[in-house]
């Protein structure tokens, strides 16, 4: 019971890191980016390649996965995404589905279609056990590691967003890009940085998730729905909204799959539809002018 709860929290934190970049992209530029999962996949494959082919240690691979996907995100933002901002949502959806198709087929070609696995280091295997019987709490070391990393990231991001000049510029740009631009905030550059950072986070999440979510070329499509649920339910105007939404989603998913495995994702989808009908702007949005 408690073990499930803990696993759910770890899963939710992972989803949060994976989806945060998407939430910011949607909030900032009102851009529906279905290709977000492709960045996560890229991060996962960077980790796998570095660990298996180059023999890097696990901890060194995580920042590398972040860096590579961030650079990739920046490049794509400059060359392709930038042209899509003003376009209708249908165009954005088509464009990002196209990108995802390309990423999936490309990775399939380069890496093969089978699921890849990694060897997590010795100190991340095994688990702690506390309590007894119904209240046993078993915490896998790897999941503890994920929770620690993700909490640190969330706290760090919150500090950056609320405490620094860049953070206040970003928040201003999210609230109203036109007025922010009028006040001399370089919205373009803020967005480039944010996009790169969000892609990097997705890459990091993908790398962390290889062991839990699994990794194969169909990853972007398999998890696209989850990212979108986090953003749609959590709203895109703050960092706490997606965080709570991701936690709820993670816990609901783990519990659902444990207690009623046949229903699978059913509970999650019904829950999402119900929430969206009740609050079309997301659970935690303020007002909702867009």
């Amino acid at each position: 019971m408690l073990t499930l709860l803990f696993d759910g929290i770890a899963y939710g934190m992972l989803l949060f890191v994976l989806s945060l970049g998407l939430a910011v992209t949607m909030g900032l530029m009102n851009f529906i980016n279905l290709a977000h999962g492709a960045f996560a996949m890229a991060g996962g494959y960077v980790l796998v390649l570095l660990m298996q082919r180059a023999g890097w240690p696990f901890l060194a691979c995580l920042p590398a996965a972040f860096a590579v996907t961030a650079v990739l995100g920046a490049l794509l933002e400059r060359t392709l995404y930038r042209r899509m901002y003003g376009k209708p949502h249908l165009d954005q959806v088509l464009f990002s589905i196209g990108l995802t198709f390309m990423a999936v087929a490309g990775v399939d070609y380069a890496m093969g279609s089978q699921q890849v696995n990694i060897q997590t280091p010795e100190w991340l295997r095994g688990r702690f056990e506390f309590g007894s019987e119904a209240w046993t709490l078993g915490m896998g070391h790897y999941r503890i590691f994920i929770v620690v990393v993700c909490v640190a990231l969330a706290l760090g991001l919150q500090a950056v967003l609320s405490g620094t000049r860049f953070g206040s510029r970003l928040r201003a740009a999210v609230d109203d890009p036109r007025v922010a631009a009028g006040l001399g905030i370089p919205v373009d550059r803020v967005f480039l940085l944010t996009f790169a950072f969000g892609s990097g986070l997705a890459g990091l999440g993908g790398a962390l998730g290889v062991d839990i979510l699994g990794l194969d070329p169909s990853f972007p499509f398999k998890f696209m729905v989850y990212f979108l649920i986090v953003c749609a339910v959590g709203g895109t105007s703050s960092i706490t909204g997606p965080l709570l939404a991701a936690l709820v989603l993670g816990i609901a998913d783990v519990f659902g799959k444990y207690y009623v495995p046949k229903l699978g994702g059913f509970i999650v989808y019904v829950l999402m539809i119900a929430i969206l009908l009740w609050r079309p702007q997301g659970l935690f949005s303020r007002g909702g002018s867009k």
Partner: protein
Amino acid sequence: MSAQDVSATLLAPTRWRAWEFALWAVLWAMPFAVPQHAALINEIAILALFAVSLDIVLGYAGIVSLGHAAFFGAGAYGAALFAKHVMPDPLVGLAVGTALGAVLGALTSPMIVRGTDLTRLMVTMGVALVLLELANKFDDITGGADGLQGVVTGPLLGMFEFDLAARTASFYSLAVLFVVFVLLRRVVHSPFGMSLQALRDNRLRLASLGMSVNARLAVAYTLGAALAGAAGALLSQTTGFASLDVLEFHRSADVMLALVIGGAGWLWGGLAGAIAFKVMHDVLSAFTPQYWTFWIGLFLVVLVLVGRERLLRPWTWFGRGARR
């Protein structure tokens, strides 16, 4: 300008053009001309019907839907189960599939009139996913991952047996597509169709003119859903098979892709797109069977970057139009 001239000008776009008659003649001649490709023609006609149904929702009413496969799947399973357990007559089965799509569309239409594009996207996709999960769970009814087998469709009109070469199937699907096309042509040029297009372009203004925006959206959505159900019914009847594949996400994505290639917002778009998509699919997968989605993806990206509306206007590719 006299009243007669005015009505003539207004009615001009509704009239059938010579090229439309010619194209339909060509389409009808196809199963005669290349009977060895009857199965492909059948598939194209079904995809075209599906794309036209999405056109009503997306191109005319402006609802971005990523879950149109929900209705396709409902129609497919509905018709297959009806043929298996109640009666094998194809036309009655088609009506059942259509009705099922319509009911599902009517039930879910209150969900799509609220919220932003993102919300609609999520809700439509969510409905399709919920149906997929349900079809997977109730595998004693639907056959689950193995698919529903043993669907036998009776002879069409009691005379024409469905054969392996799919000749009957191709005529059947073409006929349904033709009837739907003729009916929809009336609908989209009717005041109702006009109001849909106006609503797509400016919802606020339509509301201030005193039209019930939500009711019209709901009707359009239900109509689209019913036709998607018909397309699904055609598929399961002509292949004698229904599987979870009819509800998968890639169905919704493929049909949107087909519609976009042909151009959303006019009825021929669905037909042209279905033909182009299937031919492209066939050529690409003959050339690179495993990785054809890469080229489809590339095509999509380039298409959107260049501008969807310019694909059908080659004269704007070069010269002054291109630099705009």
